[in-house]
């Protein structure tokens, strides 16, 4: 089923939430008010926005250091995310995880890893748990193109295929792994062809086109829910802000960058919704305004929150005595 008008607007809302949060993270870092390694996903917001509208709270995601977009789309409350990134006691993880290690089980965000590829075996385990217990849950395992070159990716696809696990491997192919181009680090142009080596479906879509991502994800999720096993979904996209905040991106060819900006998924989708009469510009502005308010509240909440007590260094290493 193609996305309804209501769903398209919801995808827009999520994209706007991700984009406006990203803008604010960067302005806060530039202003010296936030200190953290920040891996911006600006340019990739369409992918989790279009996938997450197909998920329920019961479904799980795993993501990576570049994962704030995935978390916001899945429903991690912005104020908890902001507080975590600001290292505050009120953050998702009491400030003990930070940007590369967000966990928020309530919204299904089970693991964020800073080790390239490592969240894919864990995603298999989340799928295994659902399968063993006969629960209707799917797992979205997010990762980058570079991660498709590490062993964990290959072991995970094989294991998920052999056990028919309800996992959708979502490769957000932004064409760079740190400073290495896809061509220089990856033996294939399309990551999706790697699915054939594991006997599972693999498709490549325009990751800046919400409808294309939605349609492909819908089929992969249907398969997973039906017990037919995993799929590999590659969404081609681009990251506008380099690998990490401070990366000037000298290694990115100027014309490639200009073409990517011309294909920025956020204005592209906004314009399309208006042109196709799905929403008026005023309606979308209203969505944006609500998001701005939510972000303002999140920033205030985070910056007004206390830092964690030093006693936290001795807590959460092992189960509290008596519980084990």
């Amino acid at each position: 089923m193609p996305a309804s008008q209501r769903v398209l607007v919801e995808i827009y809302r999520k994209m706007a939430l991700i984009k406006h949060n990203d803008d604010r993270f960067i302005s806060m870092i530039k202003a010296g008010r936030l200190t953290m390694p920040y891996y911006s996903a600006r340019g990739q917001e369409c992918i989790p926005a279009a996938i997450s509208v197909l998920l329920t709270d019961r479904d799980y995601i795993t993501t990576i250091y570049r994962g704030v977009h995935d978390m916001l789309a899945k429903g991690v409350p912005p104020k908890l995310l902001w507080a975590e990134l600001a290292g505050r006691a009120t953050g998702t993880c009491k400030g003990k995880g930070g940007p590369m290690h967000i966990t928020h089980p309530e919204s299904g965000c089970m693991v964020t890893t800073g080790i390239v590829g490592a969240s894919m075996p864990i995603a298999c385990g989340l799928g295994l748990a659902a399968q063993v217990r006969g629960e209707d849950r799917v797992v979205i395992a997010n990762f980058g193109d570079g991660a498709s070159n590490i062993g964990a990716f290959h072991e995970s696809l094989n294991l998920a295929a052999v056990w028919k696990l309800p996992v959708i491997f979502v490769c957000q192919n932004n064409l760079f792994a740190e400073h290495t181009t896809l061509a220089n680090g990856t033996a294939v142009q399309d990551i999706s062809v790697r699915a054939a080596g594991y006997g599972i479906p693999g498709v490549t879509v325009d990751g800046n086109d919400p409808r294309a991502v939605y349609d492909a994800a819908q089929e992969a999720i249907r398969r997973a829910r039906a017990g037919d096993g995993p799929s590999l979904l590659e969404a081609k996209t681009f990251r506008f802000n380099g690998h990490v905040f401070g990366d000037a991106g000298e290694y990115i060819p100027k014309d490639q960058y200009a073409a990517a900006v011309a294909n920025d998924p956020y204005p592209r989708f906004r314009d399309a919704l208006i042109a196709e009469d799905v929403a008026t510009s005023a309606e979308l502005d209203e969505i944006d305004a609500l998001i701005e308010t939510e972000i303002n509240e999140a920033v205030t909440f985070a910056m007004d929150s206390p830092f964690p007590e030093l006693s936290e260094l001795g807590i959460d290493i092992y189960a509290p005595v008596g519980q084990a």
Partner: protein
Amino acid sequence: MSQTLVKPPAKINTVQAINLAIADAMEADENVIVFGEDVADLEGGGIVKVTQGLSTRFGGNRVRSTPISEMGFVGAAVGASLVGLRPVVEVMLMNFTAVCMDQITNHAAKLRFMSGGQTHVPLVIRTMTGAGFGTGGQHSDFLEAWFCHTPGIKVVAPSNPADAYGLMRAAIADEDPVIFIEHLPTYWVAGPAPAPGHFVPLGKAAIVQEGRDVTLIGYSRSVHDIRAAAVNLEKSGISCEVIDLRTISPLDMPTILASVAKTGRAVVVHEAVRSFGAGAEISARLHEQLWTKLKAPVQRVASKDCPVPFSKPLETGFLYSVDDIEIAVRTTLANA
């Protein structure tokens, strides 16, 4: 009342004890699942048959043989444990933990802390090792120090079948990741059978022999050698107290400190290579915490600082001997 028809055997070996412990845990809690290479009955029930019969009894949903993908299936065990399953996975040999170290040390060990306590990893990784069978440099190492050096992991190494049963039950019930080290060369040594449901608490050492003059501390294989040395030393009138750590990390410091405060002397014995090992940690803590009560420097007895060699004389020379333990004890006494 129905009568007990089958009398449990008075003696069992460690293979049987661990098999029984896992089976009893699976019976008691349906969240306990088992996987690893060749662990299901179709594949023989494990290369040493520790998991024999489990897949037939509990079904292929809960007991699965895996592809040769330690990173993949240990990571899957981490993931499954995050949402409440209690996986007991087999990493066939301890050296193979090297290929899934990221999942163990960066993920299993740290997710409780990094998530601020929102998730945790109730996972048991069973693995076997031990020199003496000519398996050489990549199949025989004791690598417990790698894991003990990572906060968030517990490390267990039983020396006898009853403890193996009780520690396995406790490890499966524990809320944190446990590395469970099984000693291959003593798998088939029979010992008294545990009572059903026998739990040995993690982090609690056992004083297996009381003595006056010196405390001998070991775990896994070295407990057997320590006891042999103690018998010989007794003939020279030297009285040894013997501690079986059972859990290497976290260390049971109260038991160790009380014993060494009494004897004033300590020798730590392990099969792992000497440098940067558990012996170094225990020795350091004793010197820090018991300096004024020590009558002699703490001695370490361990394997040579080299890869495990193949050739029989080399392998024997690599391992410490019972003689080495006796010499170390006499050294602590000579300093008196």
